[in-house]
């Protein structure tokens, strides 16, 4: 599609650099636009998918809900239907395509319907209440594991075949192959129950009872106290992947010509390690950032359920277990949309950090 951009700059020497600059910048902005367009299309498809999931799936939840109201509470069919329509904020008498437009219209107004189970609670307010905790815990752990992985990966690349390399590589492969929720269970079983190091019961929830949000040290401490276990699990299970990727990337960067030249120029080893090797070796890792965001957010349903951390993942798991369909569809949509937006940000971040990508386009 746009791979021609790369060869264009590879053959273009320093002499026509100035001439090349202009088209390059234009290509960069079309890259951004194309990337943005792709994200919007993805979000649109996800919205449509969730709509058709509730309307066309074998166990049509709207119909089930109506039947339930009629059978259990003896409510007349028409009334039950109206009630269901209000909860999903769709007009059930309209043809399917009109219902779809109703759904889109409601969505633009920020209306995702109301919860089945706690009537009168809009799905949007549930999302507003729980999503920040997931974004917070996942965001913090991504930063920690990325930095830790880059640091450790570089370290073992420089001490290849040493004892530390073998030990760290072994631990990294073990922690990244074992499912993260099993690690979470092991944390509860050992740190919480068997050895009694952590008070897992009071660490539940996202805040201690009675704690009011404020910019005080006590509040920040409380937030970190409750988020500690999910963060620990995400960091334990994802750092290994970053470390191994960084090790490989560093090893291949160390063989690049410009590193050899830097050595020949007699530059200080510390400068070569950080500015020449480290910087360039960590760049390719940013492309993996997008994938790992999706993976961590996806896994949050399990991790948050195990630690009883009140994030959006736990809400999703609960709403599915109790078949609260409006909450289910709203939360699924928001989780997926936040992954799409995070992917977009990771891509932009990468293109800002690596000038070559501006010319190369999407690949």
């Amino acid at each position, binding site marked *: 599609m746009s791979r021609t951009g790369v060869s264009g700059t590879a053959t273009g020497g320093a002499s026509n650099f100035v001439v090349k600059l202009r088209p390059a910048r234009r290509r960069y902005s079309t890259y951004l636009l194309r990337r943005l367009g792709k994200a919007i299309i993805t979000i649109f498809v996800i919205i449509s998918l969730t709509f058709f999931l509730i309307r066309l*799936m074998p166990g049509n939840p709207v119909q089930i809900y109506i039947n339930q109201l009629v059978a259990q509470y003896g409510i007349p069919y028409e009334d039950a239907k109206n009630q269901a329509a209000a909860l999903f904020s769709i007009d059930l008498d309209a043809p399917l395509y009109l219902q779809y437009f109703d759904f889109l219209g409601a969505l633009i107004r920020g209306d995702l319907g109301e919860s089945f189970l706690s009537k009168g609670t809009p799905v949007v307010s549930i999302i507003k209440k729980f999503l920040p905790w997931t974004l917070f815990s996942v965001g913090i752990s991504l930063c920690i594991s990325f930095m830790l992985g880059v640091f450790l990966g570089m370290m073992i690349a420089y001490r290849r075949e040493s004892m530390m390399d073998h030990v760290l590589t072994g631990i990294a*492969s073990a922690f990244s192959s074992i*499912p993260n929720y099993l690690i979470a269970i092991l944390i509860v*079983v050992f740190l919480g129950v068997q050895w009694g190091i952590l008070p897992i019961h009071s660490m539940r929830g996202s805040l201690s009872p009675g704690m009011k949000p404020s910019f005080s040290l006590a509040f920040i401490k409380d937030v970190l106290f409750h988020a500690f276990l999910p963060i620990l699990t995400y960091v334990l299970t994802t750092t290994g992947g970053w470390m191994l990727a960084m090790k490989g990337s560093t090893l291949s960067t160390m063989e690049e010509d410009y590193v050899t030249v830097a050595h020949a120029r007699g530059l200080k080893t510390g400068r070569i390690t950080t500015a020449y090797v480290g910087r360039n070796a960590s760049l390719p890792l940013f492309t993996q950032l997008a994938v790992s965001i999706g993976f961590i*957010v996806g*896994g949050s*349903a*399990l991790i948050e359920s195990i630690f009883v951390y009140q994030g959006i993942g736990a809400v999703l798991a609960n709403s599915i277990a109790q078949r609260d369909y409006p909450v*289910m569809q709203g939360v699924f949509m928001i*989780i997926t949309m936040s992954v799409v937006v995070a992917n977009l940000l990771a891509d932009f971040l990468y293109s800002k950090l690596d000038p070559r990508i501006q010319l190369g386009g999407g690949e």
Partner: protein
Amino acid sequence: MKDLFGGIFQILKLLSRNRVGFLGFLMVVFFILFSYIGPYFIPLDTSADIGMIYHPPSLAHPLGTDHQGRDIFSQIVHGGRELLTVAFIAAAISTFIAITFGSLTAFAGGLFDSLIMSVTDLFLTIPRFPLLLVLAGFIKLNNPIFLSLLLGLLAWPTLLRAVRAQVLSLKQRDYVEAARALDLGTAHILFAEVLPNMMTYIIISFTLAVTYAIYDQVGLVLLGLVPLATNNWGVMINLAWVRGAIFFKDSLWYILSPVAMIALFQLSLVSLTRSLEEVFNPRLRGSH
């Protein structure tokens, strides 16, 4: 027949070059034998015995007893077969989809290629596990075949991209060009020339697909979204968690046994793939 044994011997010899990988291979073989043949030798004893609740390991009960005084070891022996079968079928389905469409789009190019790749990109962005959870909320997953179908149908995108990249590179090789010059037809080129060269890659992808399927499947079971009535390792963990056994000091053996089985199986599969990579990619040999 002689060729076959010779081939197997050759592969075993190559596998044993990497110690960790060979250990992984032996463990995978062990887990398969344990789960498929073990049940014929060790009967499942599900009679509750109130006097035997949460007993530590003994000769009669090598892994102790659970909250109803039942033997844990026999539950572990019987708890792998269904889990592994579902994972193998799911992995076979996703590998099949990935290979077929991955190689076809690489060969066809053009509109077909960009269409398939857009769909793949879309599926890659949707976080797989939440989608799986939501679907499990709609579809009754009380049938193992159904479950493996669903797992397999959601797991192909990463694999497809990788297969496409492989085929795109193999397409450029001389012998494929030669085959095309001889006008041997796309099907022949694909099945007789390209795919055999990807066999190793396919085996590795299949192994990784098994690990994804186990991750997803146990995750679903853990959240109680798969109503499988049998005892498998996932169900054991779910029961221990739902009934609060993990918060109970004496239940260590009951919770740890299935967790260890799943964790070790995943670990062996991943180390096996590392070793396979080395066996089939001579450039990596000697780096360990």
